[in-house]
């Protein structure tokens, strides 16, 4: 399967173009807090780091989900949150060691990166070539 990866975290300049394109595609508008990729910033030391789903093999998020809403796509093998099944209990948010599960308070659902089903839009807009795709087994 293909997996979104961080090639060079030290090169991240914190511009948040990845958040913006993600929220535009997924939410039809610019709302970076709803992006499936989140840029964590430490202002004082000017450090920025993208937080993304690692597509874990034994995914803790899926393991704790009480309604089995976190499932693998049969075609791309990408883990995603079934928005109909999700009950918004947020146990997966707690379980994810990377902080990659995000809760949408308005919808009462959790969301995460679904790799845009194969071609993540965030990769091409990154000016620092921080993001990439890797084939994993």
């Amino acid at each position, binding site marked *: 399967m293909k997996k979104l990866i961080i090639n060079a975290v030290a090169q991240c300049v*914190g*511009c948040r173009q990845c958040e913006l394109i993600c929220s535009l595609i997924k939410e039809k508008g*610019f709302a970076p807090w709803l992006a499936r990729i989140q840029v964590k910033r430490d202002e004082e030391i000017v450090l920025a780091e993208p937080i993304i789903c690692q597509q874990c093999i034994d995914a803790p998020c899926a393991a704790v989900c009480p309604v089995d809403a976190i499932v693998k796509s049969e075609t791309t093998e990408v883990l995603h949150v079934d928005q109909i099944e999700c009950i918004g209990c947020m146990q997966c948010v707690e379980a994810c060691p990377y902080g990659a599960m995000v809760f949408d308070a308005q919808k009462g659902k959790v969301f995460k990166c679904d790799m845009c089903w194969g071609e993540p839009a965030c990769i091409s807009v990154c000016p*620092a070539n921080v993001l990439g795709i890797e084939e994993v087994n």
Partner: protein
Amino acid sequence: MRRLNSAHVLHVNLTKKDYWTEEYSSEDMQNYLGARGLASLILWKSTKKGIDPLGPENVLIFAPGVLTGTNIPTGGRTTVIGKSPATGMFMKASMGGHWGAELKYTGYDLLVVHGKAVGLTNVIITNSDVKFLDASDFKNLDVIRTTEKLSVETNLPTLEIACIGPSGENLVKFAGIMCNMYHTAARGGLGAVMGSKNLKAIGVYGKNGISLNDVETFLKTAEKARRSIDGTGRCQFYKEYGTAGVVMGTNEAEAFPVKNFQLGSMENAYDISGQCLTEQKYLVRRESCFACSISCKRYTQTKQRYLGTKSGGPEYETLGAFGAGCMVPDMDANLKANELSNLWGLDTISAGAVIQWAMETAEKGLLPDTFQDPLTGKKYKLTWGNEEAMLVLLDMISFRRGLGDLLADGVKIAAEKVGGDAWKWALHAKGLEQSRVETRNAKAYALAFATNPRGPDHLYGQPMAEFGFSPEARALVKKLTGDEKYATPNIIEKKPEIVVWHEECFVMTDCLGVCSRATLSTYAITVEMMADFFEAGTGIKLSEEEFHKAARRVINMERSFNIREGADRSLDTLPWRIMNEGLPISTGKKEAIVTPKELNIMLDRYYEIRGWDNSGKPTRETLNNLGLQFIEY
């Protein structure tokens, strides 16, 4: 998600601790391009002639770009507007960072601050509320501590903060407004205006998204702009070396203002250059403002002395003002000066300018050659290159101690107080210290500095094209003048035509919220692209000519503010030294100067193009043609 076809203005009154909203229609957006354009209109409407810039009747307007908050490349900028305590005139200053985008997400396009709080106050703006918090325990806190403390106390994870440092609280006339710790709306003392209102910080936290009118066109244009930035050598240069990279080329061109504009170059310029920052590993990492793909911002640290000094920057202007201007060509000392300025919230251009003025004034015997810091009792020699004096003066200015109190009002007032000929080397016009641009051998810049309503600096019209530094620059000069031979800095012919276009392009730049680094320093983002972005973002269609006309409307609005305050042609000038002392340059070349005759010839033509009379006042016909009938002086 909200659309961008109208402008929602949040008015906050600190005196009464209340707030209200106002909406400007899409027709207003069409006429004024939103953001800076509307802010200038609001400044005109909200203030009366002759008000005290540091009184409660002044307003402070924060105007992120119309498209700030979207993914338009470099679109994270915010213009701040008010009446300047340095000049008594119109002032705009601009900051990057992430604050402006977050204000947009609160659901507001502009913020207008009125009145004066009883005690030091922080204001928190969210989608649903405006809170006024007692900030008495923030008194004289530096910018980093202020930001951290407010973040912790509000417990809002992504609160973006704009604040002032002690210099703003102490009404230093060149105090800036800082956001995201290291980004400054620096010029003209708007930080002092914020301080006069007892407003320490503004935190914004929003969860209201932004939708586009035409997603497909917007994304296509964004891709085009990104490719253009990637393919423009100057943009890549700024990415590699920051604005500080310009030091070397400027020095080689003998246009680097050294020793209070007495010289045009120095031997060891490399030691205070962007190349030195990068190659000698003072650079820790690069940073971008919101949605920017250039990333010219630096985060740097000292290496041998002043260990532990770390901050955002320094920019070209900072290294020019301290390193070259004060004759301190040492990177560690400059990084320390940069850090102190950021912590205390100072405009480094004016801070460096006032210190080098003091050094020259002491050399010429009009100030004592030593001064004492009343806090420590320690004495310092006020001589060229004394870095200890330079650094302690930043502190003394910010807290108005001893000699710092004199300097905190800027070179114009300090020279008036000192008397004698001290005004001759006070490098200001209208009361604003000139930015580190040598206008004696760049005549379009000279004209742009003279006509700039905020004073002699580069961020109102930035006519870089006159240097003909790139194919894009030469093509632009040809388009504006008919011949690319006018892309020559030392001639005055056709310079008014070049300046007029750049001023209008700067209005569009500020109104959209993009960075002049992408539009005017490099021409990577074109007016055509900006018009496409504007339409795809807002749904408001403007031809290139209509876009220019709206920009002219804004320029006339801003000019009119100054005319109402009593400005005329006599203020469209340059510092005395620039017009009366030649710049010594290499043997075989003619000494550089801008003569009053040259400036007058350019002003005559400039006024003619603008539709202003011989005194520099917009004619009634010009105002009427622009729909500005309501303007009366």
